């Protein structure tokens, strides 16, 4: 299929529809408004339903209703709106319902700002909802990944019966790049015989429920969820290793910042400095195993995030005390420049190579 030029936020919508999602519930918030706008334009054309909810709380509960009724469904929002969705995400996770949630992050805390940010790493990977649940989190760094990961997200959601989050930021949402819809190798997905569709008086009733009042039942339920989480950790980790051969230094970055890091790495290469990049493509499950592949030549690790440092906790777990870890952050909505990254690395290396 020929490549077409698309805007990031619209690419999320196009990929969802391509993946068979006909239902979308959302509430306006910058910088993701083009997603609901796109869905409101496109879904009526294919007999689907776009509905603007009265709040993010209502939107995620509509997603709960629609997903429980057996269809592919999506919502999108940005940081403060995702905060409001956490209750619903916890219920959806416990009920083992599939859905896709896009977080086009902005700076926080509170109302924060509308510029690109990665300060929702905790919100996306740890969640603010109650209880022992996890959600797979994809972090696209370019628009082709927006397409591929969004489509994958629906499959992963259906396969494991779990809400899946896509972590992006205003930069990804607003940029334009050529994309294509590739041939996909299908996963085998379970049928949804658990859905609340009405019994037609032909089967026993289904109920979508997260209440387990008997503690043994709740314990059993949580161990069942845990086994599923372990399976996802085993099978669904995605990451990229970039220029890692003989790297003297390693940077860890995802999404927008990983693009900047790549150009910094190319600049440093011209000056004879070998720097590699570990780029997590899934933030949960996190690619801890990537850290086992760091070459002995490495003198340290730099984590670059548009935050005061959140992913760095996972970097520490993956590194397991082997290399010194440094941090470069921009928590106000500015994107760090390649020069800032190169300078930081050179400073750490003590001006050995200039």
């Amino acid at each position, binding site marked *: 299929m020929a490549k077409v030029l698309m805007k990031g936020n619209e690419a999320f919508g196009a990929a969802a529809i391509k993946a068979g999602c006909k239902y979308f519930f959302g509430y306006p918030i910058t910088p993701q408004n083009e997603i609901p706008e796109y869905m409101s334009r496109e879904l009526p054309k294919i007999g689907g339903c776009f509905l603007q909810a009265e709040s993010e709380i*209502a939107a995620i509960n*509509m997603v709960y*209703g629609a997903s*429980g*009724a057996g269809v592919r469904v999506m919502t999108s929002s940005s940081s403060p709106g995702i905060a409001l969705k956490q209750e619903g995400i916890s219920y959806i996770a416990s009920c083992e319902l599939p859905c896709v949630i896009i977080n086009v992050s902005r700076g926080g805390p509170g109302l924060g700002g509308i510029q690109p940010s990665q300060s929702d790493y905790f919100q996306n990977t740890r969640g603010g909802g109650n209880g022992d649940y996890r959600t797979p989190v994809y972090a696209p760094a370019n628009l082709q990944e927006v397409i591929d990961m969004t489509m994958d997200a629906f499959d992963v959601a259906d396969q494991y019966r779990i809400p899946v989050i896509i972590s992006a930021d205003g930069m990804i949402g607003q940029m334009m790049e050529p994309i294509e819809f590739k041939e996909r190798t299908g996963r085998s997905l379970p049928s949804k015989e658990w859905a609340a*569709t009405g019994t037609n008086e032909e089967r026993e*009733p289904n109920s979508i*429920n997260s209440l387990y009042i008997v503690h043994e039942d709740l314990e059993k339920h949580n161990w069942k969820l845990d086994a599923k989480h372990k399976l996802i950790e085993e099978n669904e980790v995605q990451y990229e290793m970039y220029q890692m051969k003989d790297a003297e230094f390693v940077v860890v970055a995802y999404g927008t910042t990983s693009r900047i890091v790549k150009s910094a790495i190319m600049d440093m290469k011209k000056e004879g400095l070998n720097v590699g990049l570990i780029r997590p493509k899934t933030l949960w499950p996190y690619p801890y195993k990537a850290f086992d592949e760091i070459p002995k030549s490495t003198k340290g690790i730099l984590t670059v995030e548009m935050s005061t440092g959140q992913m760095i906790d996972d970097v520490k777990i993956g590194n397991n005390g082997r290399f010194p870890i440094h941090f470069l952050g921009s928590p106000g909505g500015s994107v760090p420049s390649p020069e800032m990254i190169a300078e930081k690395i050179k400073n750490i290396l003590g001006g050995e190579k200039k």
Partner: protein
Amino acid sequence: MKTIFEKTKGLTAKPFHYCPGCTHGIIHRITMEAIEELGMLGKAVGVAPVGCAVFAYEYFNCDSYEAAHGRAPAVATGVKRVHPDSLVFTYQGDGDLAAIGTGEIVQAAHRGEKITTIFVNNAIYGMTGGQMAPTTLIGQKATTAPYGRDEAHAGKPILVSEMMATIPGSAYIERVAVNTPANIRKAKKAIKKAFEIQRDGKGFSMIEVLSTCPTNWGLTPEDSLKWLEENLMPYYKLGVYKTPEGGANNG
């Protein structure tokens, strides 16, 4: 032998967990009888609240959900938009609907969502042990209003049916009580009518049912019925507040 009374197929065999004299059970029964009589059990999807009726999904003999506190109308919206031919209803208490879930219920009605809400008003938070609800009467004692509800402090009790009737998107709103056999018959008729409104695609319908909570009112089942009659009914007037034709008949 002729069968004169049979338990509705709309309820499962699971025994109710409600306190003796609590009228939640009666409201479950008439709701499910109404659906059975309309021949729509196979199309029905119920959404249970957080409140004493939290286990309703185990009693309703149809597909069902258990929703987060107050969110049932949003969940019902999601179901109905996916399956427009199903009969979707929420069953909610006064804390669930008239406090934490006011946004969801008002907006569902405002959109003219083709769902039906059974709103059980017992003027108290039953499940959590008798705290003040938005519907608690002036002077009525609650565990968080130990001196009785004070209007200057907590405002007047919320009149949900009256409020919902003002929303252009609502099609049928009626307030009923289940304190006497005659009123129970009327309540069932109202609930059935509300489901017919939904079935015929006429819009949002809600039946407010005045109900008892002997446990947290600190009264016997009989005294509770009397208290409901003497205290709730004068403030929460029974009647039809809205019909699709625009009529109202609330005395």
